[in-house]
């Protein structure tokens, strides 16, 4: 089944999705990878507010190449999600509803996804010139000083994804990985 999904997400939208389904995502998502996650984590630990409200939002683990003149965005694809695993349960607790990345997640993240009724989606790793076609706008949202790791606010249009872990905690990966 090919399903269309729009951000922001909600319990209603997420609970219908099942691991292994192909979906096409449209709407706003935020990029964040290693350094931005570390900052989120430190801010939460210190009781400081986050620069973006994560409630019902989707984070895309990515940092694109710079655009050529006239391009909306350079090449953009998912980075390895497991590197963010340490920070993810805390962000899900803050209302984060979806993540886009690649590869399996830890057991803790799988359980947190179930607990918070969230969704983990994967894009094809290393298909960044292809995936860039489904990004219709891009602007810096915050943490500009992180350079290539700054948080971008992207608008997607029918971005091709697979549901990798659904809100019941079921996953698409047909093997076990120790993380």
């Amino acid at each position, binding site marked *: 089944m090919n399903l269309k999904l729009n951000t922001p997400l909600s319990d209603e939208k997420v609970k219908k999705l099942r691991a*292994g389904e*192909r979906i096409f995502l449209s709407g706003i998502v935020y990029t964040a990878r290693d*350094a931005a996650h570390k900052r989120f984590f430190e801010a939460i630990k210190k009781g400081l507010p986050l620069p973006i409200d994560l409630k019902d939002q989707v984070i895309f683990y*990515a*940092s*694109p*190449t*710079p*655009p*050529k003149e006239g391009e909306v965005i*350079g*090449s*953009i*694809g998912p*980075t*390895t999600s*497991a590197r963010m695993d340490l920070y993810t349960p805390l962000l899900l607790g803050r209302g984060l509803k979806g993540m886009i990345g*690649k*590869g*399996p997640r830890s057991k803790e993240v799988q359980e947190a996804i179930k607990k918070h009724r969230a969704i983990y989606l*994967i894009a*094809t*790793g*290393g*298909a*960044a*010139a*292809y*995936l*860039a*076609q489904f990004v219709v706008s891009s602007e810096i949202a915050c943490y500009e000083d*992180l*350079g*290539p*790791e700054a948080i971008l606010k992207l608008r997607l249009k029918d971005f*091709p994804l*697979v549901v990798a872990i659904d809100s019941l905690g079921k996953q*698409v*990966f*047909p*093997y076990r*990985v*120790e993380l």
Partner: protein
Amino acid sequence: MRAIEGKEIKERIKALCLEANFFLRADVFAALREAQVQEENKLAKLALSEIVKNAQIAREQKKPICQDTGHVTIFLEVGNEVHIVTDDLKMEINQGVSEAYIEGNLRKSIVTDPLFSRKNTLNNTPPSIYFENVPGEKIKITVFPKGGGSDNASSLKMLKPSDGLDGFKKFVLEEVKKNAPFACPPLVVGIGVGGSFDSVGILAKKALLEPLGRVNQDKKLQRLEEEILKEINQLGIGPNALGGKVTALAVHIRCFPTHMASLPVALNLSCHALRSARTIL
């Protein structure tokens, strides 16, 4: 002696960085097309079709194949009869990388001071540079940008001679099983065996640069490569880690004499976007 200007080397390195990042190698593209035919898992097959389309779009639009345009490793095989005219060859090489990454809109992924500030150098330098002296009056330059995700999935172990061939195979398969899902499969697996702690990693990296589909000149190694590839492709990790039968496109092994007390093994995994470019001047 033949004189070659340092500036010429800089220009070539700049061009090779761009070529490697925009144009997927013909042998890698052919292996991916073949994988598309072989793969039966529906979602994995779909991922492969996106990977093939991606290479075509990258080529047509001169857009990076992957957003991770990599850490750059450069091999220079310099003929003994070459005089390189420059005050500072390393600086010329760095400059070539820097210009390619800034002017060519490639992503700058290198951070300085890994344990502390992790501040981006903003020009993707420094690369790793390896010089080798060879006979003749030419210079062969190989530029090999490699993504962080697949390099993270690599490993090195000093096995004991008593571990032997079985211990070697066990190590390789366990590491691939553990790490392949995070390294953008289908992979190319480069394996170095022998030498010392420092040289075995370079052996593995060089093994990745051998053309896909080549036959190992050592028949025993050729058979071992085939055996390991078959076992890797039975792990069920598959393209984009979605399951399926094509977890790796190829296994390349390079051996080198080693100490009688040692059996060093390095496993350098490459994602499906195995990118390199080479020139001779």
